[in-house]
């Protein structure tokens, strides 16, 4: 079943067509990847899906609903979570608070009970903190629970962003270059982690340049070039597609 879909979506910044007429669909329970050269419009497509940009053409559908006009936070409430290319953590807040914020859509305590520490707030806090600890353990961040997010090493910050995005168990997780800046050992862990996340029932969409990660875990790959989709299919099809090799993958000269 298609869980997330864009139909003829596009956005123009003045004369620049950043994304143009892209049909992109994601099967529920799959891992999909978006690849393409720098400036091809991959992150822009993410921003259109997540609601940070309003498209100038086309529509976005999520869980069978047209969400094109919805605000970002409403899409998050529907179960669309994301990470950012250049890490968007709450740097001055603790690791715990960062991941607790990931539970914002799953909690509902009102300001008055919050201020009065009423039983419903205390219960919700207890449950939230427990859930956060579980997620932190899964991503090996439990030792850093009280550290400031901004003081963590780069790789840990990337993990923390994933923790914050998956703690609410979203329907779809958008990962924007999760592997950038990681060393080879961490890449293997990351790939396994993404598969584990998918196996827990979260559909994953990722933008990535590291081809070994993309090819080893993706069920489907879409290729963007100059804002247009030039191909999609399973890893085997993409590898052998001449247009993709020309635009992005390059020829293996050795």
């Amino acid at each position: 079943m298609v869980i997330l879909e864009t139909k003829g979506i596009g956005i123009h910044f003045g004369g620049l067509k950043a994304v143009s007429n892209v049909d992109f669909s994601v099967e529920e329970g799959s891992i999909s990847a978006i690849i393409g050269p720098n400036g091809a419009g991959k992150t822009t497509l993410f921003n259109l899906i997540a609601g940070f940009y309003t498209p100038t053409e086309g529509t976005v559908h999520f869980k069978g609903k047209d969400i094109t006009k919805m605000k970002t936070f409403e899409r998050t409430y529907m179960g669309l979570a994301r990470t950012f290319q250049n890490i968007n953590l709450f740097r001055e807040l603790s690791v715990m608070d960062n991941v607790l914020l990931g539970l914002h859509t799953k909690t509902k305590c009102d300001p008055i009970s919050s201020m009065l520490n009423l039983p419903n707030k205390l219960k919700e806090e207890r449950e939230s903190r427990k859930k956060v600890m579980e997620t932190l353990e899964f991503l090996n961040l439990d030792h850093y629970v009280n550290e400031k997010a901004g003081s963590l090493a780069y790789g840990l910050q990337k993990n923390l962003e994933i923790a914050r995005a998956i703690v609410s168990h979203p329907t779809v997780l958008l990962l924007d270059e999760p592997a950038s800046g990681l060393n080879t050992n961490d890449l293997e862990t990351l790939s396994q982690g993404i598969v584990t996340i998918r196996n827990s029932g979260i559909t994953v969409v990722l933008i990535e340049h590291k081809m070994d990660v993309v090819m080893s875990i993706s069920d489907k790959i879409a290729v963007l070039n100059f804002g247009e989709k030039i191909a999609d299919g399973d890893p085997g099809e993409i590898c052998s597609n001449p247009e993709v090799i020309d635009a992005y993958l390059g020829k293996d000269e050795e």
Partner: protein
Amino acid sequence: MKTFHKIYRVSRIWILLLFALTLPYWIPNNYYLQVANLGMIFAILTLSLNILAGYTGLFSVGFIAFYGIGAYTSAIVVTRLGWSVWVGFLLAGVVSSLFSFLLGLPTMRLRGMYFAVATLAFGEITYQVFLNWTSITGGTKGIKGVPSPEFFGISLRPYSKYFYLILIVLVIVILLTRNLINSRTGRAMLAIRENDIAAEAMGVDVPKFKMIAFLIATFFAGVAGALYGHEVRYVSPESFVNAESAAVLAMMVVGGIGSIPGSILGGFVLTMLPEYLRFLGNIRLVIYGAAIVAIIIFAPKGLGGLIEWIDGLLSGTIKRGTHKKITEKVEDKNGHS
């Protein structure tokens, strides 16, 4: 050393409370006692501004307006309608929040400086209304004869008694603020301050939570204003000029942005300091200004940061020489592994 840390950790809150409860006996001079009361009222006001600016990142430059609205609301309903002072206090908060709601509707979508400028304008408008709506506010002459509250027949008019009323309100505001920060709402506010794009990605309805912060902050500010009106028993426009807003901002910065102990210290110290420096004549204002600059340079996290650091040393949560906080959780973990 360990036993000392333990004793300190258990006793610090009681020592603080004992000090607060006996403060009127430490300051026998009635004039200075009034200044101390004013200092505590400003501590409440600074704390409310901190909810807005320190925690939510919404810099309000005309914050004194809400304090003024609170003071006038209570003074008007008590002197003109003969309502109870206690109702006046509550209404001061409610009406102040109501105005922030009306101001918030168009401005909550504005970012950064735009909101600051909007509040600056609001502060000026409010001042002009206090000054010119003579039939209600008494104009330049203000409202005289604002009564002191009574508590089961005991008049709280003496400063040494009114002190305890302010102290109770201050403690309540501290507790409510602390609980708020450790909650879903509080974290949403902090998230907006830190990174509003990421906050939105977390599902935070940014304008709504800005509004919530604004309503809470101005409620407390309104109550603080009413406390002020019934303390000095006279309300007039010059107490609410925009320069006073700058003073409250200074209190927040000197105390430490986003710090509860900082807000209290900032409000208290910056109210007391000019009075205690009075013997120096006009040069005191220079020293006052220099003191603010010195604190900002040498204690970038303000007096609150300084106090938290000393507190950390005494309670043993900070190791000497390093500024790194060692949390109990991590200590436990390392102990086990």
